[in-house]
């Protein structure tokens, strides 16, 4: 599932061609079963998906691979989803992050969007919703990369 990915160059130099089809995703949730379930769903949808059950593991995985999109649980033992989000973003400015929260709350949603998440999902969610949101996020990422390619000085993450 993730053999070839270790040879990949960092995301900064990756061209933005057809990002939806080959998208490489990272799922982070301390509930191992939950992470596995999401992984399975997204693999079925044709993505390459890695799963991590802790923030440390997620960070370690990000060192080896470059991800297009990370799905991060809000409540985790080591650090919150928002902290992990910022951490991931520092290492890879082009990564898109979806926050998953069990307190399906508007403020947490707004807060995570403000901190740079591209969207949020309140648990429990329908897997179809998950697929839709992932697809949408990847589409926006493709647009973002395209925009950045055309106007490298203009496009920043904040504008999206």
């Amino acid at each position: 599932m993730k053999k070839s990915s270790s040879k990949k160059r960092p995301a900064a130099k990756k061209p933005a061609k057809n990002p939806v089809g080959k998208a490489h995703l990272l799922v982070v949730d301390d509930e191992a079963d939950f992470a596995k379930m999401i992984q399975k769903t997204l693999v079925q949808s044709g993505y390459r998906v890695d799963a991590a059950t802790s923030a440390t593991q997620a960070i370690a995985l990000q060192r080896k691979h470059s991800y297009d999109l990370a799905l991060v649980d809000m409540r985790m033992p080591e650090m919150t989803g928002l902290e992990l989000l910022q951490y991931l973003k520092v290492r890879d400015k082009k990564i898109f992050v979806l926050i998953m929260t069990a307190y399906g709350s508007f403020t947490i949603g707004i807060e995570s969007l403000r901190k740079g998440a591209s969207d949020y999902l309140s648990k429990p969610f329908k897997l179809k919703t998950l697929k839709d949101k992932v697809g949408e996020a990847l589409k926006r990422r493709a647009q973002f990369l395209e925009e950045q390619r055309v106007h490298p000085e203009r496009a920043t993450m904040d504008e999206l």
Partner: protein
Amino acid sequence: MPSIETKAQNFKILIRVRTLCLALMIFLLWWAEGTETSSAVIVGWKILIFAGILGLVFVVLGKIKKITGILLPFVLLLDSVLVGLWVSVSGGPVSYYIPFFMLTLISAIMVLPARTVVVVILGILGVFIGTIYLDFIWNLPASFEAGKINFISDALEKLPPADRETIYHQQTVRWFFFFVMMIATGVLLMRQVWLREERVRIREKALEQKRHLIQMGELTGRIAHGVNTPLGLISGNLELLMAETRKGSSTLKQLTQIDQYVQRAIRTVRDILDFSRQSMSEIKPVSLLQVIQAVTSAVQAKLKKVGGTLILDVDPKLPDVTGYPEGLFQVLLNLLENAVDSIRDGGIVTLSAHFQYRSLRLSAHDRRGEIKIVVRDTGRGIAADELKRIFEPFYSTKGFGKGTGLGLAIVKRIVDEHQGSIKVESRLSEGTVFTLLLPTDGLAREESNHPDDFYYNEPITHQKETSE
């Protein structure tokens, strides 16, 4: 600017000082003249002294136990009456009343909105001018010269009958003037103080309630979290399983049924969580524009499914509302979702939000207003007997298992927490209108505070999806 509480406190102190002054003056009068006057006058003064002592008791009470909003106006009324009585039996010059008026004036300035202060000042000025006119222009007899305390009875005895008549007349007019003015001022102040005390009390109560709710919220939050995770796993795995199961098989039917029940459980937990969570977030200025934007995007999916149209009529200059962002989001989401649920293909949901001045204002300078939000749908409507119970918790018109009956109860509670009001009108098969009024301290903005001006009020139309 001092807070309302500080102002109310200052005002209370002033009221006590005023009562104390009154009692002292009455005592001085009695001490200076008491022994030489007729028995009827002495009885009169005894009554006044008793009243003054009563005032002192209030002062003492105020120190021991806070004079509450209900007692305070009575203290005020009492010393207004005392001043009136004093004026009616003594013939002293205007300067005697000045301390009372100054105190009334100062306390008025401390608590009243500008316009009412102007009214009070004008009223007091009127009384002063009237009194000065009576005292000096009408050439009162020498026995009423300034600086001397005179009892009517003593003075009148030394006067010829014609002068006596004049004095009676003037005294009555003056008495009437002062008494009416004092009562009017008292009533005015009473109303204001009562209003403010009431507001403080409401706030205190809300705070108390909030503390309680935070504990409740933590508990329910923990429960909901504990239940949500397994529910998420169940529903997710169920979906995976259903995708793998052959279409039309009995297994799939059973799985679908399980899924329905799981979805119901999820909905219930979510509603209970919403119901208990409102007061957990902090109060702050909330941009309704942001909330409306979030809500409209949240109902898109539902709208798409039904094939309805959403028309936004939102003033881009809406001022902020002080409250819970979470709660306001919930209110609008529930109202919009209900509206979308009730319409059929081609139905229209309208959301309008505008600023208006409050219809009941304290004064012309009271520039505060409210935001009127109207959610209108062309759906199936609600029957009149159902309409009465619509805000009751656990009352649902959606049929067993479809709704938890908490949606509008949540709305009502949050609106109450924001000291707003909600009204519903409905006609069967014509539609329903929810009218929401939210108080705001802010004024309408000069400029739109949304960079994109995304409310150009274009209808968002969705064609009904043929296949899901």
